[in-house]
């Protein structure tokens, strides 16, 4: 578990605290669906897309990437980054795309169910 990171906005939440590791996988897959990114880029995008609510730490991001790579959902290769340095870029494989759409559907179903429960209560 990642300890709470100080210094940032009080509203931001470290991902490990809220979600099981699998949900972080889903978010990573989503960010990579558009274009290949390096680790920093992924973290940045998740932060942006969640309006700064989710913040990703090294200790949760890289093991997750490692898992996804191992499972053949993403491919990694070293490439020159935008500022001319070398960075490890991750891109979604066909299996990654399939997993993403499956997980997304399931998540949406679950979220809708939870929402409807919350509405009725």
């Amino acid at each position, binding site marked *: 578990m*990642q*300890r709470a*990171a*100080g*210094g*940032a906005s009080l509203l931001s939440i470290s991902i490990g605290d809220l979600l*099981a*590791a*699998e949900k972080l996988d889903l978010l990573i897959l989503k960010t990579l669906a558009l274009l290949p990114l*390096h*680790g*920093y880029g992924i*973290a940045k995008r998740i932060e942006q897309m969640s309006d700064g609510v989710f*913040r990703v*730490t*090294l*200790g*949760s*991001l*890289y*093991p*997750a990437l*490692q*898992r996804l*790579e*191992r*499972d*053949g959902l993403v491919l990694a290769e070293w490439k020159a980054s935008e*500022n001319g*340095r*070398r*960075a*490890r870029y991750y891109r979604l494989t066909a299996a990654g795309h399939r997993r993403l759409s499956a997980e997304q559907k399931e998540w949406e179903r679950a979220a809708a169910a939870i929402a409807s429960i919350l509405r009725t209560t």
Partner: protein
Amino acid sequence: MLSRLWSRARDLAWSDRRDRETQDELAEHLELLTAEKECSGLDRAEARRQARLELGNPEEAREAVRESRTGFWLDALLKDMGYALRLLRKRPAFTAACVLTVALGVGASTALFAVVGGVVLKPLPLADPGSLVRIYDSNPARGVERTGITSGNLQDWRQRTRSFRGIAGHYTMGRTLTLGGESEVVLSAQVTADFFSVLGVGAALGRTFTPEESRMALFNSAAAPVSPDPVVVLGHALWRRRLGGDPAVVGRTIVVERRPMRVVGVMPDGFAMPAPDVQLFLPWGLPEQPPRDQHYVSGVARLGPGASLARAEAELRGVAATLAAEYPRTNEGWSVRLVPLREDLVGDARQTLLVLLLAVALVLVVACANVALLSLARNLERLPEASLRQALGASRERLLRQFLMEPLLVSLTGGALGVPLAALGLTLLKQVGAAVPRLHEVGLDAKALAFACVATLLAALVSGLPAAFRLARADPAPDPAAAPARLAGGGRRHALREGLVVAEVAMAVVLVAGASLLVRSYQRLRAVDPGFDPRGVLVAPVFLDMEQYGGGEKSRLYYATLVERLRGLPGVLATGAATALPASPLGPDFERPVWPEQSPHDERVRRSAWVRMVTTDYFRTLGVPIVSGRGFDDRDSPRATRSVILSEGLAQRLFPGGAAVGRRLVVDYSTTGTYPYDVVGVVGDVRFSGPRAEPRYEIYLPHAQRPYLVMNVALRTSGDPRLLAPAVRQVLHELDPAKPAHGLYALADLVGATYARDRYVMQVLASFAAVAVLLSLVGVHGVLSHRVRERTREIGIRIAVGASEAHLLRWITGQGLRLVLAGLVIGSTLSTALARVVSGLLFGTSPLDPAALLAVAALPLLALVASLHPAWRAARTSAAEVLRAG
């Protein structure tokens, strides 16, 4: 899948490099964030500090990556294994029971698989074994299914057929081998010139026979070959045993039947034709005019390229029909049958083994079902844990893996123990299964070990999956409000367990039904009267040679003296001898046409009878009753009128009304003439080749009038006949040191061998059935106990509202009975369908024999016993205690 495996392998191999890469990657990440913060105006040191705070410790992250890389499959596996081991250790009795169950199942099935694989499935160790066939003569009109072929027809077959690449003949008999002053009787085969080439086997040392050697070797049945330069080929085992595996044996001379013979070759190890114990091969040249009515030759042939068995058989039958027209006197009614050589060697052992394999598979299924039941019942207690872990994000896959680990460990241990058990079982099977052909070839080979692995994994899956699925399907959010549903019994929760118990009981029912059919059949088999009394009889086959005992008078004298001497031994009640004894495989045994003298031309009364030469006192020695007239005695001397004794069945057939004695019977000895014989007596029918075969028509001739070289000597004693063996050996040695007996056997053992397979199958199946019943009862007990535990609350309430103990007992035992009855119905249906499988093994017993039904009906009673304990526990539940706890 492949790429995933590859990347895992790479992870392991290059983990150092990957580790450095991760380090670089993390540093880069940190650097990028630092740079960004610098852009917003912070100095470098401060930017770096904040970035680190925000991102966490890169060293810890690196550790986590490393863990997630290797950890997944090795670390997690070890963790799961440790967890499973702890759980198993906590319940040693449960674990031991499961391991033992699997070990027995795997061990038994592997041993049987090895036997079936070696005996039934493995091709013969001969070139292109599929094209080798046995040829039999058959005469359906006379009720002769299969018998030997004749040397006369053999030559015509060769010339008139095109479907065969070769047809060879051979004849097996015991011959005395003398080496270094020590004589022993060895089984030998005299083989026609093309015997080895038809089989496609050459000598391992030296050569087989030349055409010239074969042509010169003319036989006079029991004698050694009459050839100016006798030659012999040795079997591998004999060469090793008696000649010390001498590589220079070719050219050496050995003595067979008192004749020096030159060794020309040694057969390769593993050559087991015509039988494994045939260790001496002699050439055999057929005479100019070989007989067409002496069916003693064994035929073996190789089909030509492209010829099918059916076509070859059709062609040969056509030739046989032509020959029957050309030689009606000898060939009338005779046709042929072709049988694949492998089928012929394995014979009906195939069916026996397949039945046993089926049975052992059923036991394995029951064993697995039981382990599944036990761990299911146990794992249900872990449902809350599973739910919790799933809610915490543990994947279904991971839960499944974790819960499969336990049965996997149990099965692997069981399987590992099963292999030595299989080796032990195989030794036992070999010891008691002498009736099974090719058993000597069987061993725990790679295939059998592979089978053991597969059986083990199957056991793991079958025993683990039900429990694992049940757990992995656990409700991720255990709802305390669901508890009342549990109280009401929730039918579906139990469907799996009850299904397993029902299946278990059904398998047990099938086994019990099969076993009781075989027990019944065996009882009927043993109840058959063989027509003689084998108890207390010792048998000594003696093979005299032409060289020393030719001409009749000498062999008559030898056997007369031998019988006289043996009769004088202490403890001997009676002694006699016959060319062939019931249940004894050695000795000449042949049929001749016979008819009453007064109706010479009436084909309808002509019968084929088996001819036996016997000494005086033979009937008394064997305990064959004399029905009318007398047995042979001194009146039947060489110079007296020829006399004959008939078996009762033949006497009734030829001389209806019991008027046989005093009439005359004609026996057609085609080679030596056709003479009338005075019928002096009628004796009881004898089941010559075991209880399954009907008694045959037999005639007995006095040895004094028709001396024979090969005789089986029998001695009756009041005690254990085997104790006579040393004295008998001594007498034989004194009479002629070069003529030892071909082994000494207790007749009861020989007769027992004819039942051996039936007894064997019955015992194995009965023990399988017993195991299956026991296991299924354990299953019933387990399920009911668990249910009682689970429903303690309901039981408490029932007691509180006034349910009596008797009522509770009825309730629980009723549930057990319901399961058993369901299994009974399914099992009975199944065994009716499977009855066909065992019907071929049964003797005088219908596959739907009521005995099987009766045995099966006992199962519910046993089930009642098994459910008593849980029922009793239920009845003793204290209402107050339960309600307070609930």
